[in-house]
């Protein structure tokens, strides 16, 4: 069976600045990968390699066994959910339109179908259906974040990329969102790659944790493995051991 995501010896840079130095990674279908590491270590860049928002200067990225190529990037992205910190909902669209954004890219959808998708997704992220007609500015931070996840999942992707999706919400809401994401992932079997700053969140969610430092994957393993055998002082400090 092919890997959900395969990154082979990838390098990436912004101008002169090389942010990824020879990174290789294989993600099995259904895994929940969490990436942690200090700011500027290349976490976000690694994530953006996976949906082609960053193009590697060297190396190859393959999704479900197919190498990512410029020509079919748009089609591949529609099969990959993407959620980011602060949700970044489209402010001029209602919650329903936001949720139905990706399915709508494939062609115009009848109203009934839109409504059905919105309702289903709102239920999935545990929001009341009445929110469908609201605009993002009328939502709380936690609600926005939930809608962001609903938008990422609406086209039933088999891969979900999340860049600190719970970074901007309060502690209680975050706990709730973590539980829900965890349940959602188990239920749908979606492959998740998740960036966070929150070590507790990483241990709680990740079936595998990647620790990044200065553009390389410094250490990886299950939470248990990392706790038992941290590679060095840096990992110890990062994991607060």
């Amino acid at each position: 069976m092919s890997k959900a995501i395969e990154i082979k010896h990838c390098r990436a840079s912004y101008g002169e600045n090389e942010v990824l130095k020879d990174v290789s990674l294989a993600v099995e279908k259904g895994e929940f990968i969490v990436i942690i590491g200090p700011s500027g270590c290349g976490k976000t860049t690694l994530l953006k390699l996976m949906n082609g928002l960053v193009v590697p200067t060297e190396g190859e990225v393959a999704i479900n066994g197919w190498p990512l190529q410029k020509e079919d990037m748009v089609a591949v992205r529609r099969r990959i959910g993407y959620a980011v910190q602060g949700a970044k909902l489209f402010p001029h669209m209602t919650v329903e339109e936001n949720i139905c954004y990706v399915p709508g890219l494939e062609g115009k959808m009848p109203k009934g179908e839109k409504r059905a998708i919105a309702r289903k997704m709102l239920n999935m992220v545990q929001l009341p259906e009445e929110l469908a007609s609201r605009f993002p500015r009328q939502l709380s931070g936690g609600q926005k974040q939930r809608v962001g996840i609903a938008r990422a999942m609406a086209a039933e992707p088999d891969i979900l990329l999340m860049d600190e999706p719970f970074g901007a919400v309060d502690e209680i809401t975050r706990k709730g969102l973590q539980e829900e994401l965890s349940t959602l992932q188990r239920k749908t079997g979606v492959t998740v790659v998740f960036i966070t700053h929150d070590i507790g969140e990483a241990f709680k969610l990740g079936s595998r944790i990647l620790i990044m430092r200065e553009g390389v994957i410094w250490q990886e393993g299950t939470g248990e493995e990392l706790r038992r055998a941290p590679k060095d002082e840096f990992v110890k400090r990062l994991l607060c051991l």
Partner: protein
Amino acid sequence: MQLLQILWERREFFATCLLEHIRISLTAVLCAGVLGIAIGIWISRHKKAAGIVLGIINVIYTIPSISLLGFLIPFTGIGNKTAIIALTVYGLLPIVRNTYTGLTNVDASILEVSEGLGADKRQQLLGIRLPLALPVIISGFRNMVVMIIAMGGIASFIGAGGLGSAIYRGITTYNMTLTAAGSLLIALLALLSDFLLSRAEKGVNRRYGIE
């Protein structure tokens, strides 16, 4: 009183002028609107050309309107056609600048998300960029409409119709009331258009959840 009297007595003349004025302005507004938004979109995609294009339009804008009309006469003759061309050229600046500013000031992180979700360039433009830039574009459009209507007044100096004819005739015959009446109608037309457009602007903002 005199003003109202003259407006009433020569109502047919004023009505003809007013309709002609609306016709000329509307044509110029449509030309400048379509052309201006198209240019604005194009330069928002070609950043290198943006500076040059905006520079040229800026320079044209500084040419006194009366001399621009003069320059055009050898090429397009006198009459409405020349007037419409001149008004269109003048109207470009606000609409091109606002379209460009609106499109380039859309939050980059929102654009990146839409790209990451699988929108192609066209879908990004039509679904995200243009709607989010719309309030800025409309305010440029309002600007342009008022300017074209007001400037339409001098078009009759090169033989075009419109309310400028009343003003021009008033000046040449020392009939100040006639000039004032023409000016008043131009001002009212501009104010009314601006008011209607401001309503449209509010409607759009409400539709797009920006208030």
